[in-house]
């Protein structure tokens, strides 16, 4: 009939349509690139945590008023929530079977991560730009 297909998929497999959703590569690359960014950011964050934990409120305000600290902490949070959203998405897809509960958890995961990143960045900007109250 037709020329041999370049694909290894059988016609039946294509008709059932249960193959790749064509989204996997994007997820994989986003996971690896955010993970790469988080390697130096995490090590910086551990030392930043040490510094901030040694002081009180005034010290924390002063620390976060530094542009470098504010930007790096913001990047740590944003890259972290991107990475965690992808990671927890896979955990939910692996362990939750029901369509409704799986969808609900995936959407909740998305909302929690966006809310967390937005709250974090806003709080950083407020302290960095306006200082103590």
């Amino acid at each position, binding site marked *: 009939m037709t020329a041999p297909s370049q694909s290894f998929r059988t016609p039946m497999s294509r008709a059932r349509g249960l193959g790749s959703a064509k989204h996997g590569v994007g997820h994989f690359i986003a996971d690896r690139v955010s993970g790469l960014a*988080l*390697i130096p950011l995490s090590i910086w964050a551990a030392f930043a945590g*040490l510094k901030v934990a040694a002081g009180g409120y005034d010290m924390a305000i002063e620390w976060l008023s530094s542009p470098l600290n504010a930007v790096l902490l913001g990047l740590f949070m944003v890259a972290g929530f991107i990475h965690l959203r992808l990671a927890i998405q896979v955990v939910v897809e692996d362990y939750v079977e029901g369509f409704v509960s799986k969808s609900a958890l995936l959407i909740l995961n998305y909302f929690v991560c966006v809310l967390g990143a937005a709250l974090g960045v806003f709080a950083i900007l407020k302290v960095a730009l306006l200082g103590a109250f």
Partner: protein
Amino acid sequence: MTEASSGVRERPLSPHLQVWRWHVTMLGSILHRACLVGLYVGALILVGWAVALASGHDAYLAYSGILASPIGKLVLFGLTFALFFTVASNVRHLMWDTGRGFTPKIADMITIAGIAFALVATIVVWVIAGQTGALS
């Protein structure tokens, strides 16, 4: 689920956890996933810290008081390990992505190295914290 899938024979399941002999790459994989779930909570704790700081002096004192409690310290200690182990895992996965390090010997070695790095780095951070007065 759909018309197309009715009458299709059962798709094969992957072998269950209990049929596997324990090996260190398996521990690394499970630990990686557990650490990420822990860090999810940790990320929210970090956001809570930033919000408390932005909310003023009293809110910050209350929040840092919770973090400095024995349970708070235990959680932060676990999160320190989870953070460092995830860093090590990310390095390991990037190495595996290049197609290298898949022989059992090397794979076991870099997984053990990751766990060891996370343990040592966590202890170093907490020893420094003790010396700088961050724990008091």
